[in-house]
């Protein structure tokens, strides 16, 4: 029994010597000692020495959370000849000294009780050995924006096959929609297309566009993924991408890629540099599907690639690791009523501005406002629309808006030198290499007028959009009769993120961003082993951070692939078949599909490698036929008795 002071973290609150004294007399405790830092090398050596001296068969370490050092102490115990699963941690830091900083006496009493409970538990622990599982060395990457492409390229370059899935017909994600990028103002397409074409031709990457992950089963190293490949109604094996069909198509509907600022044919390639450079038919816009007549594309196609009868197909892939790179969406228009977003044509969002500014966009890169195509001379940019707004949007900061708004204002000045950009901001968050300088340049050199304050209302008045704002620094209300308003709307998780998390059996936060295993130390690992996160799927991020995280998640995948076999904790559920009634409640309780009914023998069974040891089944089982290894009901009761006295 070893008690750690953790410097003042524990020792400053809990009376450690007293704890040692009280525990020494407990039944089954051979020896109790304390040390200032048990996780240090001398601390570890102390444990090893005493195990050998006393010929211990189990140990209890009272220290910090098992999340921190359980594996450290388990391997210390193992190195001294104690089965690692007979090493228990009593958490007297996070669950005792920290929350009870102002009640040292109570904390000391609680520490004794927690340790006594751990002692009772360790007395019932069995000596277990880790389970071993094989690894499939292929990876699935979900989402082919800059994050997904980078992760896929890094994994594939290391020699492992990658299945890259995107629900759109092309890859590139939102970055393909951007005109220029901060802080260097280089053209987004110019730096993106080398990546897209490399992904398109990489022999190690199986690219599945117009595809979505439908189901995932299995576990780390051994996932089975079902992917639905949506019908494109074009046989891509035959199609040469000549574009004749898109020219001749008589239907025109708003283009999603152009954010509704331009129309596109029902059969189209979203943008000139798209990879794969093949068209798809959108049945909801196609006259053949909606009206039952037409078929112009079929007639003009020189290679007969149009296939109206094409069906969705289901593809099954076996992979060992999954990278989630599903990206982001923007805050829905309907929710910003006071700015007339979605109502007034000249109130647009940041991505719409990117398209207006893009050489391949609807205005060929000229800044012309949507309503009448006039060049706007007074443009108001509003930051924090839906961000940092817990009441009407989201409490978090969307992180990139300060920078892209500065970029927008500067690009606008480049194209409309006699125009005046105004930026309503609350704080400027420009913490990145070259970022602050970039914003300063906007105010100093380009004449962008920054107004510190939020806008209350925007309304249409004739051909102007009138902005009611405030400049809190001068304490004056501000009214601007603008020609166009650009909203830096909040970044929100991509639609369907929560549903995908459910399919992947991993967690998201309350907004739908994928949760990382630890916010600081495990930022690219999800809460499910073998599933990693990259880019805005986790939280709002700019391109450099996204690429960094994508590389990091690829490194994690490669680390996983480098082990010959994976080990799995043996503290899983087990069934006492003698008393199992076969009612199946455990099967329903399991979130990992690790439980099933053996219908022949009418008992429930456990798939050890799928079991995460969460204990939900053991709790659900009415008579305790299912138990958790090293957490039997009798152990739990003994722990309760130890705590309750």
């Amino acid at each position, binding site marked *: 029994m070893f008690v750690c002071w953790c410097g003042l973290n524990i020792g400053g609150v809990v009376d450690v010597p007293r704890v040692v004294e009280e525990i020494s007399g407990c039944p089954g405790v051979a020896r109790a000692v304390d040390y200032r830092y048990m996780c240090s090398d001398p601390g570890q050596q102390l444990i090893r020495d005493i195990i050998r001296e006393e010929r211990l068969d189990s140990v209890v370490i009272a220290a910090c959370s098992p999340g921190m050092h359980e594996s450290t102490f388990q391997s210390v115990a193992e190195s001294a000849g104690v089965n690692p699963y007979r090493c228990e941690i009593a958490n007297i830091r996070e669950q005792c000294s920290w929350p009870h900083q102002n009640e040292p006496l109570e904390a000391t009493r609680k520490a004794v009780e927690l340790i006594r409970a751990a002692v009772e538990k360790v007395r019932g622990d069995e000596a277990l050995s880790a389970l071993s599982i094989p690894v499939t060395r292929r990876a699935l990457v979900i989402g082919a924006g800059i994050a997904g492409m980078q992760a896929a390229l890094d994994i594939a370059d290391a020699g492992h096959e990658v299945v890259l899935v995107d629900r759109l017909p092309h890859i590139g994600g939102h970055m393909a929609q951007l005109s220029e990028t901060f802080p260097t103002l280089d053209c987004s397409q110019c730096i993106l297309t080398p990546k897209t074409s490399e992904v398109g031709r990489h022999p190690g990457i199986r690219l599945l566009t117009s595809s979505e992950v439908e189901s995932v089963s299995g576990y780390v190293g051994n996932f089975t993924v079902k992917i639905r490949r949506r019908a494109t109604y074009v046989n891509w094996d035959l199609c040469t991408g000549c574009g004749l069909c898109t020219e001749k198509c008589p239907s025109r509907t708003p283009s999603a890629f152009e954010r509704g600022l331009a129309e596109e044919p029902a059969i189209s390639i979203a943008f000139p540099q798209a990879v794969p450079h093949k068209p798809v038919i959108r049945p909801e816009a196609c006259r053949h599907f909606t009206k039952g007549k037409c078929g112009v594309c079929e007639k003009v196609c020189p290679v007969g690639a149009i296939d109206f009868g094409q069906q969705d197909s289901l593809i099954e892939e076996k992979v060992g690791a999954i990278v989630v790179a599903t990206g982001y969406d923007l805050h829905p228009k309907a929710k910003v*009523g006071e700015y007339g977003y979605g109502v007034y044509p000249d109130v647009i969002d940041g991505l719409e501005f990117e398209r207006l500014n893009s050489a391949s966009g609807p205005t060929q890169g000229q800044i012309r406002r949507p309503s009448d195509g006039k060049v706007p001379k007074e443009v108001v940019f509003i930051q924090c629309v839906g961000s940092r707004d817990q009441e009407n949007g989201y409490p978090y900061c969307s992180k990139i808006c300060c920078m892209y708004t500065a970029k927008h204002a500067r690009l606008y000045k480049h194209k409309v030198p006699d125009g005046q950009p105004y930026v309503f901001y609350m704080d400027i968050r420009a913490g990145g290499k070259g970022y602050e300088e970039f914003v300063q340049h906007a105010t100093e050199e380009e004449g962008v007028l920054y107004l510190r304050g939020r806008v209350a209302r925007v309304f249409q*008045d004739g051909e102007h959009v009138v902005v009611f704002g405030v400049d809190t620094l001068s304490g004056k209300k501000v009214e601007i009769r603008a020609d166009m308003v650009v909203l830096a709307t909040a970044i929100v998780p991509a639609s369907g993120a929560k549903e995908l998390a459910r399919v992947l059996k991993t967690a998201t936060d309350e907004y739908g961003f994928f949760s990382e295993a630890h916010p600081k130390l495990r930022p690219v690992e999800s809460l499910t082993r073998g599933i990693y996160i990259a880019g805005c799927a986790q939280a709002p991020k700019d391109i450099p951070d996204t690429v960094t995280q994508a590389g990091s998640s690829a490194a994690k995948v490669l680390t996983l692939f480098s082990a010959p076999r994976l080990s799995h904790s043996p503290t899983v559920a087990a069934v006492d078949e003698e008393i199992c009634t076969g009612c199946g409640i455990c099967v329903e309780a399991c979130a990992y599909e690790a439980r099933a009914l053996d219908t022949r023998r009418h008992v429930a069974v456990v798939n050890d490698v799928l079991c995460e040891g969460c204990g939900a089944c053991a709790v659900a089982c009415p008579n305790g036929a299912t138990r958790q290894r090293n957490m039997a009901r009798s152990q739990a009761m003994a722990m309760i008795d130890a705590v309750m006295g």
Partner: protein
Amino acid sequence: MSLRQGSMRYPYFPGCTLKAKARGFETSAVASAGALGVHLDEMENWQCCGATFPLQADNSFPLVSPARTLASARKMGERLVTLCSACYNVLKRTNHVLRTDVGRRDKVNAFIEEDYAGDLEVMHFLEVLRDDVGFDALARSVKTSLGGLAVAPYYGCLLLRPNDELGFDDPEAPHILEDFLSALGCQVVDHPYKIECCGSYVALEPGDLASGPSRMVVESARSRGAQAIVTSCPLCQYNLDVAQQGAHGREQAGVPVIYFTQLLAIALGLPEDVLGFEGHVISPGPLLRCVGVVGSDAIA
């Protein structure tokens, strides 16, 4: 629900102003309702709502008067109809407090010796017209065409805010008055100040301080061609009306500010004695005569 002649009865709360300075609001509303088969049964036991919802967390006493009214209305039925925006706001918000805040409910109930749980539905007459009569049916009942009379709706604050308690309409882009005006055959004049404050009780401050915001509202409607402004708040009516008394009144023709029910009564072809335009600063009479919707000299 469609229009069922003579089948709709509602307990109705008039409020002080409608019995005094805004009589025309009530007489036009009650008569119009009657013409549409809606009976507004005035509650027997009502008292002043307080005219403004109390914003003090530590004082529940101002809730007592509206709570008494609500408790007494609950005994008449499950709904209570109001006309005045302020009464609607105060009664509905008080009702919300009594429904959701058990502590304040118990305190108020103990004081008024009632056991009222906040389970009344407080409605505005506009909601009755929209949901129970139906604007389509209303359009069919129009007898006197308003001939494209350009009318600006004015909501002010009390109908719309706070939206999570009132839930009356879209708080930033309301449209119930517009829909109502369209049903009457008016030409709706949209204007940005329709949800801005008129200055409210600041009218009592010396120095004519409320007329600033009020003039902004009137100007916003007038400059877009409005021939009249409709409201459902006697204080808005007063502020917008009085604001035009000075310079504006002489330089250019004023914009009459009238209650939506007065317009409704005209459209339904009701006798002019129910309109009650007396006391309006900018008399709507000349305008209405000039567009040909009102003929006699009953209008001052």
